[in-house]
Each structure stands twice: as structure tokens, then as C-alpha cells.
């Protein structure tokens, strides 16, 4: 076996400073005579250096987002029973609502509030395989449906009004993150022109905030909402559909179409005056 062959297994650990004094000495002695192994060590070192380079400095916006997330955790711990008092806790109720939405498929028309309770309750009962055992749970599911409808209504109204965006530089978008609580990026929606962004407090969700990104495509206004999907269960009353292998929740309200997707805790919803398939395609595009 050549000396180089014997050295090869030691070179990595030598560079990592993990050899015993004895072994280090052996390697060092070999390096004096062997330019080839010296070059190997240098190459290892160069790879290491370039890997360390380009480590990003955490942005102020990211730090603010983390502080907000940790503060929310602490508050959640200190007030675990918050849901008993105030209207509803979305964290706990959302799964029920989502389960109900699987069976509910009323997308086209907005049902009257008094029939919704019955529909949601029946849907929940059929999912559970028995009749509702708790009337309070039934009414919870119903009020989730009602509140999500109210939320969708708010978004449609916001989209319709087309209020003036207050952030118009893509580089400033990350400043919205602490308020929204999730990453806000600027997806390109099939080349639609981006006009600006703002933060929208969603009244129906106890002022949980969503970022709204306004685009224009072929003279149509497109509003993309970005939000924490755990807190804003938009899909709860929309109709599930699969577009490009992605589950999309779609609906039409007051002549506008709404399509929502979720990925890793971030919700994206599009409101347009285009048809519902077009909105669905746009919202899937927002994932890429």
C-alpha cells in the first residue's frame, strides 16, 4: 500500500482536528513530502470555507416574526382556556369545521344562515357515523361555518373595493410578516402585474391579519391573500377540488370567485371576477 493510500482515510479527520497527536504527526510528516495530499487538504479547506460563506444575517423582519411567534406560544400557555369565554377558538374548532367541509359541498350559492346550522350538524353527524351527541358541538360547527362565511364576505368586499395598497416595493414585503405571522413572498401569477400589498385585519377572525397582494391580469383585478391557515380556516365552507394534483377549495360569492390552498401552515386565497377554474389555477400558481 502506498503511503498516500494509508493517509487518505485520515485526511478528513486531520482537517477536522479530530486526530490523536500521534496520528496528526504521521499526517504532517507525510504532507512535507507529498504535494498531492497537501493539495487534497487545501481543497477540503476551500470547500469548508465556501460553505461557511453566504450565511445570511437574520433580518429584522424575521426576528420580529420569531418574537411574535414565541409571544403567541407563551400567551397560549398562560391562557389555555381562552376558548371557553370569547366567541370561538379557531385553533380548536377549525378541525371540526374542516371535517364538516368535506361533506358539505355548497359552493355556488351562499346558504341562508338558519339552514347552515342544520346542514353542518348533519354533515358532522354523518362523518362521525352517529347522530350528534352534543348539541353544543353541533352549534360550534354551525357557528364556524357562519363565521367563515362572514370572513369570505369580508375578503370579497375588500377585493371589490380594491383599496389602495400601501406597500409597492417587493423588497419591503417582508415587513408585513410580523403582522401576518407567516412568510410573505411575491409569487408570479402567470405573469400578472403586481400592483402592491397591504395588511388586512380580518374582523370575522378576531382581527387575525392577512396580507393582501393585488395583481392585475388582462384588465382583471386579482387579490391574493396570504395568512396563517391555522387561524384562518378559509377552506371550511368552500368546495374541495383537485387542480394540478393540488387540493384547492373553491367557491363563488356575489359574482366573485374565491379559491384557497394551504401549504405548510400558510394559506393562500385568490379573489377575482374571473371564473372559479381560473381562480383555482391562479391560486395553485401562487405556490410556485
Amino acid at each position, binding site marked *: 500500500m502506498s503511503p498516500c493510500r494509508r493517509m487518505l482515510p485520515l485526511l*478528513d479527520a486531520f482537517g*477536522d482536528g479530530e486526530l490523536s497527536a500521534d496520528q496528526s504527526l504521521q499526517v504532517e510528516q507525510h504532507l512535507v513530502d507529498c504535494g498531492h495530499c497537501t493539495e*487534497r487538504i487545501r481543497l477540503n479547506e476551500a*470547500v469548508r470555507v*465556501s*460553505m461557511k460563506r453566504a450565511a445570511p444575517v437574520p433580518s429584522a423582519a424575521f426576528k420580529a416574526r*420569531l418574537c411574535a411567534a414565541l409571544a403567541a406560544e407563551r400567551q397560549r400557555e398562560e391562557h389555555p382556556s381562552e376558548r371557553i369565554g370569547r366567541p370561538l377558538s379557531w385553533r380548536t374548532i377549525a378541525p371540526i369545521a374542516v371535517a364538516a367541509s368535506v361533506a358539505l359541498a355548497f359552493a355556488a350559492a351562499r346558504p341562508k344562515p338558519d339552514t347552515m346550522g342544520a346542514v353542518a350538524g348533519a354533515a358532522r353527524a354523518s362523518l362521525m357515523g352517529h347522530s350528534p351527541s352534543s348539541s353544543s358541538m353541533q352549534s360550534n360547527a354551525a357557528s364556524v361555518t357562519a363565521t367563515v362565511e362572514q370572513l369570505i364576505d369580508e375578503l370579497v368586499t375588500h377585493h371589490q373595493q380594491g383599496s389602495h395598497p400601501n406597500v409597492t416595493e417587493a423588497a419591503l414585503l417582508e415587513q408585513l410578516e410580523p403582522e401576518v405571522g407567516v412568510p410573505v*413572498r411575491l409569487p408570479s401569477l402567470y405573469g400578472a402585474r403586481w400592483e402592491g400589498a397591504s395588511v388586512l385585519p380580518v374582523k370575522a377572525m378576531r382581527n387575525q391579519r392577512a396580507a393582501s397582494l393585488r395583481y392585475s391580469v388582462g384588465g382583471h383585478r386579482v387579490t391574493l391573500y396570504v395568512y396563517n391557515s391555522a387561524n384562518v380556516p378559509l377552506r371550511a365552507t368552500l368546495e374541495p377540488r383537485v387542480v394540478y394534483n393540488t387540493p384547492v377549495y373553491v367557491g363563488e360569492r356575489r359574482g366573485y370567485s374565491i379559491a384557497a390552498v394551504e401549504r405548510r401552515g400558510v394559506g393562500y386565497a385568490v379573489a377575482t371576477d374571473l371564473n372559479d377554474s381560473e381562480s383555482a389555477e391562479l391560486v395553485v400558481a401562487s405556490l410556485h
Partner: protein
Amino acid sequence: MTRRPSPPDDFEQLALEHLSSLLAVATRLTRNGAEAEDLVQDTLVKAFRAREQFTPGTNMRAWMLRILTNTFINRYRRGGLERAVLDGPDADPLADGWVSSSSMAALRDPETTALRPVLEREIGEALRELPEEFRLAVVLADVEELSYKEIADVMGCPVGTVMSRLHRGRRMLKSRLYEHALEMGIVGPEKVVGHEPASTNTVDLAQYRARRVKVG
């Protein structure tokens, strides 16, 4: 009613002191800045929830890196890849002496400074193509300069496993770098002479590249 003493209120502050480390590692593990930030946020929230399990006075950075590592592995594990790599070609042109000293020098020190960013990007991409366990070992060793023992603790595996993952991970990185340099003409095949007879070099290299293409 007795209550556990509540955990120190400065946990958030202590944890955020390690933010740069966490983000540096997350950036090298994930595909983009948004994913890296998500991974760090998940890590911090999990650390906060588990903060009573942390023993004050011990290495908090290592503890948080362990949480980050587990989160990363659980979320991104692609499965089966490590095996594919282990079963793949074992040839290593750099270690096996196909590559001359001058070519290695060219790899680490491109004569045109304009090439440096290209090669560095190549290293970044090659890193992202490594199986998760290999990538983790390399990043923890090279970016955070953890010792083998610390990496073993963070990854929950024996030191020997750390060493073999590091070795194979780095070898794959350098192979990729070398391939790329060949394509870009930074090193030329004519420079490929080593300890073996020159006549067999070209054949071996061609075979090596052909096998690499099949795997990659």
C-alpha cells in the same frame, strides 16, 4: 395547590442568541431562504414548548441544533436515498488519484475570479442534492464546526457513523465540483493524470462519469 416553578422568562432571549447559528445551518440544509426561516421558526417554537427539558448550564446551541435536526429530518426525509447513494459507484476521482495536484489547485483557486461565485453556487447545489444525513453531518462540521462527538449527539448516531457520513458527503461534493469544473473547462481531461498508468485514466474517467450519470 402546588405549582411547578415557572420556567425562566428569559428563555426567548437566550434562545434568540443562537439565531444566527440556527439560520446558517438551516440555510445550508434547505432549498431557499423562506424554507430556512420556516425551519428556524418551527425549531424555536418547539424549543420553547420543550424548554423545561433543557438543563441550564449545558450547551444550548447543541440542544437547539438537535431540535432543528429532528425537525428537518422529519419534514424533509426523502427516504431510500441514502441507500441509493451507498449502493452507488464508489469511485472517487479525487481520492483515487485520477486528478492531478494542479487540477485540485484549479478547483480551489479558479484563476479567473469571476468563476468563484459559480463554483460556490455549485457547492451549494451539490450540498442540497446530498441525502439529508450526509448533508447534516457536513453542515454541522463545516458551518458550525461541531466536533464529531457533538455531531453524534445532535444526530443521535455513533461517532463512526458521523465519520462515514462526513467522508462520503464531502467526497460527493468534491466529485460534483470536479465534474462541473471539467464541464466548464476550468480543468481539462489532459490534466487528469495520477498515480495510475496514463493509458487507463481516460477509460476509467469515462466509465466513472457514465456511472455517475446513471445514478444522478
